[in-house]
């Protein structure tokens, strides 16, 4: 395939991925907006006013970046996981297997599609948060970089999950038992400085902590961790996940008998 053909093929996947989550918006875009509004009202307004400040900022302001990140993570992941698993289930993935598209292109198409959903939801949640607080972004470029990288990373994760999954249950296990706990424990609602020393150290092995904190640093200018190292770590994770997905694809894992 020449460059034009590759670009057309990539756009074909991205477009149909975006069309998919737009078509079923009551399942994809609406629920996170509602859940996050609840979080803002309950934790931010009602409880937050009693908590006062966290790391020197208003509690409401403190949780907004974490909640945006949480939506980006779960939505990127589950978009690719359910879309790619669905196409395996319906066998329409065969349309791609018989085509001349290289594996990297198929993977990239789904990842861009998943990131698009994650970022779309992130944007909606950001818009909702503006009803509750003012966001005064400190480092816009860093903020954007981190959120895009996170969306990409979790989209690849969702892809791997879909490749390995054999039944529909298999694609909800990771979000429920891994992603949600790690996100909650990743400093969305609190600064790890509020934890005893031991638990602070344990928290530091949670990769999501780095993403949430870097993103929060981008917006508020406060962070529990070294921001530069965190960005590097996310980049390394992306490379590892991508290589892993490519290896599975080349082996035809879960795709070719």
């Amino acid at each position: 395939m020449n460059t034009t053909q590759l670009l057309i093929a990539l756009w074909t996947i991205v477009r149909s991925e975006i069309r998919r989550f737009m078509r079923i918006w009551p399942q994809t875009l609406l629920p996170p907006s509602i859940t996050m509004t609840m979080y803002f009202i309950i934790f931010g307004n009602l409880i937050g006013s009693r908590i006062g400040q966290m790391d020197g900022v208003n509690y409401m302001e403190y949780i907004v970046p974490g909640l945006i990140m949480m939506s980006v993570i779960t939505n990127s992941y589950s978009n690719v996981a359910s879309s790619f698993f669905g196409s395996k289930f319906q066998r329409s993935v065969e349309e791609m297997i018989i085509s001349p598209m290289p594996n990297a292109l198929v993977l990239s198409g789904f990842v861009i599609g998943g990131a698009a959903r994650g970022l779309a939801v992130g944007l909606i949640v950001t818009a909702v948060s503006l009803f509750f607080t003012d966001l005064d972004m400190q480092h816009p470029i860093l903020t954007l970089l981190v959120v895009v990288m996170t969306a990409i990373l979790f989209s690849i994760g969702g892809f791997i999950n879909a490749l390995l999954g054999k039944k529909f249950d298999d694609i909800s296990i990771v979000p429920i038992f891994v992603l949600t706990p790690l996100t909650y424990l990743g400093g969305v609602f609190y600064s790890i400085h509020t934890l005893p020393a031991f638990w602070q150290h344990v928290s530091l092995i949670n990769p999501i902590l780095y993403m949430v904190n870097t993103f929060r640093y981008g917006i508020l200018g406060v962070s529990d961790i070294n921001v530069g190292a965190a960005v590097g770590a996310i980049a390394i994770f992306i490379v590892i996940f991508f290589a892993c997905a490519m290896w599975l694809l080349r082996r035809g894992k879960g795709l070719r008998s």
Partner: protein
Amino acid sequence: MQSALSIRGLTKVYDNSFHALKGIDLEVPEGDFFALLGPNGAGKSTTLGVVSSLVRKTAGKVSIYGIDVDREFARARYYLGVVPQEFNFNQFEKVEDIILTQAGYYGIPRQKAVKRTHQLLEDLGLWDKRHDAARQLSGGMKRRLMIARALVHGPRLLILDEPTAGVDIELRRSMWQYMKRINEQEGVTIILTTHYLEEAESLCRNIAIINHGEIVQNTSMRELLSQLSQETFVLDLAEPITQCPAVEGFDVELVDGGQLMLSVDKGQRINDAFARLSEQHIEVVSMRNRANRLEELFVRLVEESSDETTKGEIR
């Protein structure tokens, strides 16, 4: 002439260690209309699956128009169109979008893809359904959708795995016409599998019969038909009889009082049999072929090959 498809020493062992293909060689010349026949579970879909890369081969070589599918994967794909046995499109997608998306996977520019898609939708009688979701189509329409999708990038080799299964008689004939047209006018090489031997007979120039993962016959249709050395007729009698009559020179079998089964070898005259029957005052009212003669031959070939393979197997 160049081969549209060349398969050498193809073996396939599935993950559950089932030997589905045991060293298949197949050569399909450019422009051919080729039938791959065989009973259920023979390995037809597995063979076509390997060609379309949906099944990983264990050993062997496959080339499409001289292009090795392992070495020049992408280039070989452009020559190939695939209509699988099972429906494999997104049931919620619109008919038109399914074909357009497939065109996109080949990197075909939008405008060209739309033009081609509309042409195919018309040719295959799906134009009125183009905005419907695929799940709303009837079974026969779904098959035609898969044919349209397989042709969108203008392949030179089209493989169809039971394209007419579940398609009504009238529609089947129009599909035959369509396949004949693209074979004759556009020079597309076609390989199909089918359980309707009449279909293979009326469409195909060459055939291969596969059984238990081995090719047991690979010849031209004409050659195959000339092998038909014996035909069996069913004779309906005017009055039931109780004992099977002896008809000199012929194999006769009494079926259920009112019917006789008569086997006629090549060179024998049916008239002689009738004469013998008349002598015994047995009156024949009507007569028909016991089964499609091709079907009989097919069953015999398959049975013979099964006997051989069973003999060869260590139990």
